[in-house]
């Protein structure tokens, strides 16, 4: 690891003050929370910092109820604790299920909610310093476009980057009404989850719309109540402890055989957690049948631009999405 200094923030304001001070000195900073991604990247040289500001001891770990059945989850709550939390399990099972599908018992004990949102792509070229990568080294080129394309994105890619977002949790959050609460030099900012992550465009080095010093303090999940019936399904190359090839988070409300409301999040398909808005629109008000679900994901996949190696992801999604929605339909019946 390149040398850095360590300091422990005593409050959110203290963390922001330290970052601002470093910025004035021309020093780079990084916030340390669970460290499961950052420590690895510091060691590999994917990330360098002059000052490591430890925010992991701040009191941001509570899970509390909001009005109308929503939940507020502190940014430093550990993945394992949130996944096992009774309120989360009862209210938004898809959130628990998504987190339990990710990483290992050890890593879930360490990883935080805020850090999960900010984890970086597992594109093999991003993690291999011997190869060009626009995300790691802007302007150096993209090795994945012409290289091994098995894990590349299907939707929203650019000439600069075809990487996918790796988080399971974020796929579930994409399917729900989520606000990310951040603190920055100008105070609190509330960001719609859909606006937190960005498509690569010609700036793939930026994963999110956060400003450099901003710190995520909480994640707020509002109703809808029908998310009590929600599921997560992850497809991967081994049964456990692997990143998704694709994944599906879905919540469904069926009334009189019709889809009253539906939410679908897709993982492994884009640079950001993908909400399948086109499929949702096709489904609302229509019949709650397997055929309708298959037709809806087919519409969603019209925007997919698979390369030579990742067309299988389209096939996986065309099977997995109807399967998950049908399972939820049976649960309702």
């Amino acid at each position, binding site marked *: 690891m390149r040398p*850095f200094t360590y300091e422990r923030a005593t409050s959110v304001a203290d963390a922001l003050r330290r970052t601002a001070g470093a910025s004035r000195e021309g020093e780079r900073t990084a916030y340390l929370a669970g460290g499961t991604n950052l420590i690895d990247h510091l060691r590999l040289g994917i990330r360098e910092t002059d000052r490591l500001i430890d925010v992991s001891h701040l009191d941001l770990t509570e899970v509390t109820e909001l009005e109308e059945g929503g939940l507020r989850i502190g940014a430093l709550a550990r993945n394992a604790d949130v996944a096992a939390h009774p309120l989360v399990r009862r209210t938004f099972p898809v959130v628990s299920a998504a987190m339990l599908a990710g*990483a290992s*018992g050890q890593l879930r004990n360490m990883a935080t909610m805020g850090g999960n949102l900010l984890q970086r792509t597992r594109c093999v070229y991003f993690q291999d310093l011997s190869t060009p990568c626009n995300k790691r080294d802007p302007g150096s080129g993209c090795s994945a476009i012409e290289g091994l394309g098995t894990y590349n994105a299907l939707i929203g890619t650019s000439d600069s980057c075809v990487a996918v977002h790796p988080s399971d949790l974020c796929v579930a959050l994409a399917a729900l009404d989520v606000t990310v609460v951040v603190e920055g030099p100008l105070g609190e900012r509330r960001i719609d989850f859909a606006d937190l992550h960005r498509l690569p465009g010609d700036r793939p080095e930026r994963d999110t719309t956060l400003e450099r010093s901003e710190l995520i303090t909480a994640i707020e999940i509002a109703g809808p109540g029908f998310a009590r019936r929600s599921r997560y399904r992850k497809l991967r190359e081994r049964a456990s402890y692997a990143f998704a090839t694709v994944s599906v988070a879905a919540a469904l409300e069926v009334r009189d055989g019709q889809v009253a409301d539906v939410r679908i999040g897709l993982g492994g398909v884009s640079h950001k957690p993908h909400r399948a808005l086109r499929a949702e629109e096709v489904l609302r008000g229509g019949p709650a049948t397997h055929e309708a679900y298959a037709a809806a994901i087919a519409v969603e996949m019209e925007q997919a631009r698979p390369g030579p190696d990742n067309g299988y992801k389209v096939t996986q999604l065309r099977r997995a999405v109807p399967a998950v929605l049908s399972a939820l339909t049976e649960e309702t019946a």
Partner: protein
Amino acid sequence: MDHAVGGTSHLSTKLVVNGHPQELRHDVRVTLLDALRDHLGVTSVKKGCDHGQCGACTVLVDGRRVVSCLSLTASLDGAEVVTAEGLGTPDELSDLQQAFVDRDGLQCGYCTPGQVCSAQAMLAEVAAGMPSHVTEPGALTDPDTAVELTDEEIRERMSGNLCRCGAYVNIVAAIRDTAARRAGTGAQP
């Protein structure tokens, strides 16, 4: 801790390791894994991948299993750390360690300290009712449902510990035996 105002490149950290208070002065970049092995001589903790992918470095920090290769010592001031040595000794193995011996839950043994620490914490997680990826949807949404520790549950919950010898079948058996024995005797997990 001597870094209340600015940053520091070296500092002193206090840990309780296997019940013994320790204080070490270290570069702030030192991981818990390197602190245990190189500073404190606790060599049961193994460096496998050093990237959080293999679980060989698993230890308990304040009772929770973590990978020590991705844990920064600087952040752990005051923490209680337990390694395989803290669970039992060669003369007095813990029930779980004895079960690994009885069931041949190892071949080369390199992953075993991590496996044992991970299993110890995993059984506590099960006792606390924490769900897993293979928990049925109906049980996931009902937090009062007790976890039934099937072999499928053991395999899923232990997937963060790799064994390149492939002793998995016997590792699962050792954990299953231990869970059953503890349930039978009413012992704490």
